[in-house]
């Protein structure tokens, strides 16, 4: 178990007590909501900028390049400069486009990714809402983004956008099944959809180790399906630039384009964070059986480091895919899901249910 000094609950409880002592309870709750909102908004923006920077650096490593290195130390300010550029760019109104839906679409996409962040357990005692159906909630709201993508493709009044949006719709609806089933297999182990319960159940070992081969298999399927769900290479058919120029966001410019761009990266973070929470123990440290000394050393690493370390490891895996693999074709993509991943996943879930029934896990 992680050391108590690293727990954020003392900090959050202190703020809560101080606010309640100084003002009316309803005002205290409102203030807390505002604080949480501001913290999340700034975290969201910083994370998005950092992920774009990280992607450019990882991509550069894969391609024998250096990557951004002019603006700021090691090019760290490059994405901020890019953001300023996007903020100042003209928002081009599209003739004959459905203006209301055209303007609405980016907000749906970004709101969906923003909502999913609320339920993630970032560290010990650092979680905005601990819903009793946390995992289900994250899956539900993160799949709302496809509505925004479909609206964007439809309202742009462009053929490329429409083809891109339709591809995206087919893809996300198919792969949602595999994502759900592979997460369900771990839920069978824990017996709870609450994210804090799932993390707590991995105190003595992560599910990817405790769950034998079926859990590892579920993780691989989750990684593939999760990558497909966030429209990233090799499944980036919705914005395949060699076929559809930029897919569903072809007609968007300036900050509206940036919203799509940012939401894509935050979705990647959410997919990686859910994988880290469900398969790799969330903020739980790495423990090996009865090695007391080793386990004690691991406990000294703060829980927030564990969570972000695992998440960024999975993000690196996803980026690695993108920069080495060619893109699939739409029929191959759907074949992969409906003919291979889904049946295998169903069998895997049954095997896991059997393992749980017989008590064959640690």
């Amino acid at each position, binding site marked *: 178990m992680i050391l108590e000094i690293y727990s954020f609950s003392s900090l959050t409880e202190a703020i809560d007590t101080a606010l309640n002592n100084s003002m009316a309870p309803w005002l205290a709750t409102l203030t807390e909501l505002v604080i949480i909102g501001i913290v999340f908004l700034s975290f969201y923006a910083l994370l998005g900028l950092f992920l774009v920077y990280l992607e450019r650096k990882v991509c550069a490593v894969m391609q024998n390049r250096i990557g951004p290195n002019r603006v700021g130390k090691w090019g760290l300010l490059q994405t901020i400069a890019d953001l300023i550029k996007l903020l100042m760019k003209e928002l081009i109104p599209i003739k004959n486009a459905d203006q209301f839906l055209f303007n609405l679409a980016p907000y749906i996409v970004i709101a969906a990714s923003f909502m999913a962040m609320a339920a993630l357990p970032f560290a010990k005692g650092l979680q905005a809402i601990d819903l009793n159906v946390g995992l289900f909630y994250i899956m539900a709201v993160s799949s709302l983004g496809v509505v925004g993508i479909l609206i964007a493709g439809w309202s742009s009044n462009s*053929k490329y956008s429409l*083809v891109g949006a339709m591809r995206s719709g087919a893809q996300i609806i198919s792969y949602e099944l595999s994502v759900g089933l592979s997460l369900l297999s771990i839920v069978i182990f824990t017996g709870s959809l609450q994210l804090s319960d799932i993390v707590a159940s991995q105190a003595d070992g992560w599910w990817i180790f405790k769950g034998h081969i079926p859990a590892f298999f579920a993780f691989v399927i989750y990684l593939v399906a999760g990558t497909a769900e966030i429209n990233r*290479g*090799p499944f980036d058919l919705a914005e395949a630039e*060699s*076929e559809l120029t930029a897919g569903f966001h072809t007609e968007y410019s300036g900050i509206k384009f940036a919203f799509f761009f940012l939401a894509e990266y935050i979705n990647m973070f959410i997919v990686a964070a859910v994988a880290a929470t469900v398969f790799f123990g969330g903020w739980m440290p790495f423990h090996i059986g009865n090695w007391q000394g080793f386990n004690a050393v691991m406990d000294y690493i703060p829980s927030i480091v564990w969570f972000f370390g695992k998440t960024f490891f999975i993000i690196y895996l996803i980026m690695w895919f993108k*920069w*080495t693999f060619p893109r699939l074709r739409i029929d191959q993509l759907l074949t992969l899901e409906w003919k291979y991943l889904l049946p295998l996943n169903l069998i895997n879930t049954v095997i896991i249910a059997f393992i749980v029934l017989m008590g064959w896990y640690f």
Partner: protein
Amino acid sequence: MSKDVVTNIILRDDEDYIINMGPQHPSTHGVLRLEVCLNGETVKYVVPHIGYIHRGIEKMCEYDTYKQIIHLTDRMDYLSAHMNNEAVSLLVENALGIEVPERVKYIRAALNELNRIASHHLWWSAFGMDLGALTTFFYGLRDREKILDIFDESFGSRLLHSFVTPGGLMHDVHPNFRKNILEFVKYFRKKLPEYKKLLTDNIIFQNRTKGIGVMSKETAIAFGVTGPSGRGSGFSCDVRKIAPYGIYDQLEFNEVLYSNGDSFDRYMVRMDEMVESMNLLEQIVDKMPEGTEFTAKMKPIVKLPEGEYFQRVETARGELDVFVVSDGKKHPYRMRFRSPNFSNMFTLNILGRGLKIADLVAISGSLDLVIPDIDR
């Protein structure tokens, strides 16, 4: 006449869902406009529209001397600049009966093969991009840079060299020329397996290219598809073999032939051609005579005797034919190029019909089109 040719009839309908790929589109490698009719994701027909980069090179040739024409030929297939130059040079030399020094022939062959490898580098890079594998671009260009450095050192330009002229070369090559070629061959032999690891062996890549865009040998012959695209269908059309020019009849090399005619075979032909070109380079450097002579004796202004002249060479994309009608003046009466890309491109409708739109991009990538060569 082949059956495919008969069925290459396009019936337009007012209800058709048309997407214009190009003239500004990331996958057409230039200003080519493809009018693609879609049924969902499936391609119903493809109509290529050309002429966006037509510069009237053939007409301009009628007002230039033969040495000036060299500079225009660079601008056709800019990735095979040396081969284009050599086509006109050989034509003038054969017409006047000039024998160029042996050393020049070897240097020309070396430049041809270097240029062929450089062109295939760029094709490989762009083909990977067409399929969504963006990293190939940097691997290909990294190795292409080594060849461009050799060019840079010898004649100061990297893409459009205009180095081969009637009678020989513009000037002598750099003293390091032989050493650099050997170094490059040694370097690239080590790097070529990376290409295999990164793209050729990739299961997604193979699924995307195998059995896609199958061109039968009959179609290849009927459409006049030459070069690696034709040889992928088993059509033996290497001008270096069937009508040797320069020094090629004294060099040992194989004509790479594959028989399936799909995108993957066209890909493999080019990959194997890079190895063949490296073998050729080693032989050329080995046999190249010492010395400093780089040109035969030529008058400043060449006048071809009255008559018709014809020359064919093998560029990186296929057979380039030059046809000249001379009326005995210092510039040609009429000049005509038969460019490989023009014939290769018009198979797009036959190959892409009934497949997905992503396949169409893959097929146009596997044909290795250079648009300025089509329009001229």
